[in-house]
């Protein structure tokens, strides 16, 4: 329950100017966060019929390629916790020859548990073509001119997110339950792809328009990211929490300088890639919305965190992302990437990731479900419940480090 004059419910221009001035973030991040605040007092999410998405997608495609296409077989696509997705087939002539291409529309609700830029997501997926398996990206509606909200269209990739259930093989933990055979094949690719993402040549990244550059020897990009989530905390939190103030100061005071510039996926874990069981192959790495140019240790701690881990059949071996013990993962990663892993940075980014997750869950998940801003408020509200568990871990880490 909040005071009726909660400024975050209907932020005025003075509040918006203050958060923008106080916490410097990348320009495109600033753009989407500011847009979110200006729209906050607007309506919540109400069910959008499939016909509205078909009309909007048709407009978007027509604007790019004219009218010579047919959109067929439209259907809701399940999965994807924070965005609405519609699968469809497009009959068109991209190279002068008629073909039928399966595609996916990915559209934001009015507010999400993470407010991100479709421009950045589109650009990063495109940049990753040829580096790791990603779907082709086709068109973007960055401001929601054709569709009700910002959206992008990408190619439909074959594969599944979860393996088929294994009766009698229930194992403990939150991570994905892969069979031992599948683990062996998928974990090797999981490591190799992350190494490839983190070692994309610098010249490949120079064309990125929607990402601010990072610099070796400087911690500026790290601080920019800490400020990103500190700003979101200020925009979304239901109530002050002095522990978050202490965590923020610690992260700023101890921000390590980059020793190598990597593309950081930002949410690299089982559940964010598709794979095919028949040939045990990762077919697409998804959900690039949180990607940044930064420090590889951010992804390394994220995909090995306990909350995403699961015990193997022996009940003792903890598997990062349900795939591989963390020590083996690190060893293989170092070999595959040629980059070292620094235990201090792992510690720093563990705290950083927990800080960000606390912001997402305690602040944003509460705020957006409270205002009915998503297509699944109950899921988002229930997600926020886990925030105090993460904050508890953050407190324990600070007890050790601060």
């Amino acid at each position, binding site marked *: *329950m*909040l*005071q009726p004059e909660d400024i975050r419910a209907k932020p005025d221009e003075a509040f918006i100017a203050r958060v923008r001035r106080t916490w410097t973030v990348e320009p495109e991040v600033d753009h989407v966060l500011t847009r979110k605040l200006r729209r906050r007092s607007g309506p919540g999410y109400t069910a959008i019929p499939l016909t509205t998405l078909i009309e909007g997608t048709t407009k978007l495609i027509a604007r790019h390629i004219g009218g010579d296409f047919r959109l067929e077989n439209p259907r*809701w696509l*399940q999965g994807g916790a924070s965005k609405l997705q519609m699968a469809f087939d497009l009959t068109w002539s991209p190279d002068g020859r008629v073909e039928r291409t399966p595609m996916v529309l990915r559209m934001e609700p009015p507010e999400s548990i993470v407010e991100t830029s479709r421009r950045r997501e589109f650009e990063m997926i495109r940049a990753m073509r040829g580096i790791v398996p990603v779907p082709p990206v086709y068109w973007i509606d960055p401001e929601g001119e054709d569709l009700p909200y910002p959206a992008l269209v990408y190619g439909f990739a074959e594969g599944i997110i979860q393996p088929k259930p294994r009766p009698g093989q229930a194992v403990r933990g939150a991570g994905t339950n892969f069979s031992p055979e599948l683990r062996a094949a998928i974990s090797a690719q999981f490591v190799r792809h992350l190494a490839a993402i983190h070692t994309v040549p610098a010249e490949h990244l120079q064309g990125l328009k929607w990402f601010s550059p990072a610099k070796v020897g400087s911690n500026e990009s790290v601080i920019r990211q800490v400020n990103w989530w500190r700003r979101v905390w200020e925009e979304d939190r239901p*109530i*002050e*929490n*002095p*522990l978050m*103030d*202490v965590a923020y*100061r*610690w992260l700023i005071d101890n921000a390590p300088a980059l020793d190598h510039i990597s593309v950081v996926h930002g949410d690299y874990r089982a559940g964010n890639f598709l794979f095919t069981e028949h040939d045990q192959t990762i077919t697409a790495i998804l959900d690039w919305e949180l990607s940044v140019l930064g420090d590889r240790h951010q992804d390394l701690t994220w995909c090995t965190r*306990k*909350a995403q881990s699961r015990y193997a059949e022996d009940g003792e071996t903890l598997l990062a992302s349900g795939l591989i013990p963390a020590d083996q993962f690190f060893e293989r990663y170092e070999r595959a990437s040629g980059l070292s892993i620094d235990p201090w940075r792992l510690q720093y980014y563990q705290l950083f990731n927990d800080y960000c997750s606390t912001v997402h869950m305690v602040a944003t998940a509460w705020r957006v479900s409270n205002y009915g801003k998503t297509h*699944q408020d*109950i*899921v988002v*509200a*229930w997600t926020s*419940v*886990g925030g*105090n*568990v993460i*904050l*508890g871990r953050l*407190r324990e880490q*600070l*007890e050790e480090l*601060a």
Partner: protein
Amino acid sequence: MAPDIDQELRVVLKALEQVISPALDPADPSAAEQLRLCIAALRHVQGHFALALHCARRELANAIDLAETVNAAAPTSGLDEAVRAAGEQLHDIRADQAALDVARQILLAAISEAVNGISEPSARRAVDRAVIAGSRSQLDLARAWFIEAGREPDPQAIPPLDSML
């Protein structure tokens, strides 16, 4: 008053579980997931609504404890008046949940302002340590409140809710 809140929740839950749930389209996993969470949320309300006022009072008491810990670490933090005002609400037996929550919100804002206003390194470190230690009881309470959600890696490590209210 009949039907009372508990009865209302019981009949709603029965309808959701025994009538609505089996009638859902199996091809719509999103509907099934949202219904499962609706039932879990209602069960949580059923088990906790009678405790909500006690919890709000405990949360305010935790915030006062935190303010006093910070004040002890940095006597110049200027939290005395905020603590006194919060204490008045805490001891007002007529204060409802909304009033207790507002008092807590005001006090936490004052603590945050005090914490962020300290720049001298040794005082800052002392205050940081005070906040880290003083935040535990509130976190334990919040985690115990939602223990049934199944998010705790080691539920036994969290003190039982009734021991904190």
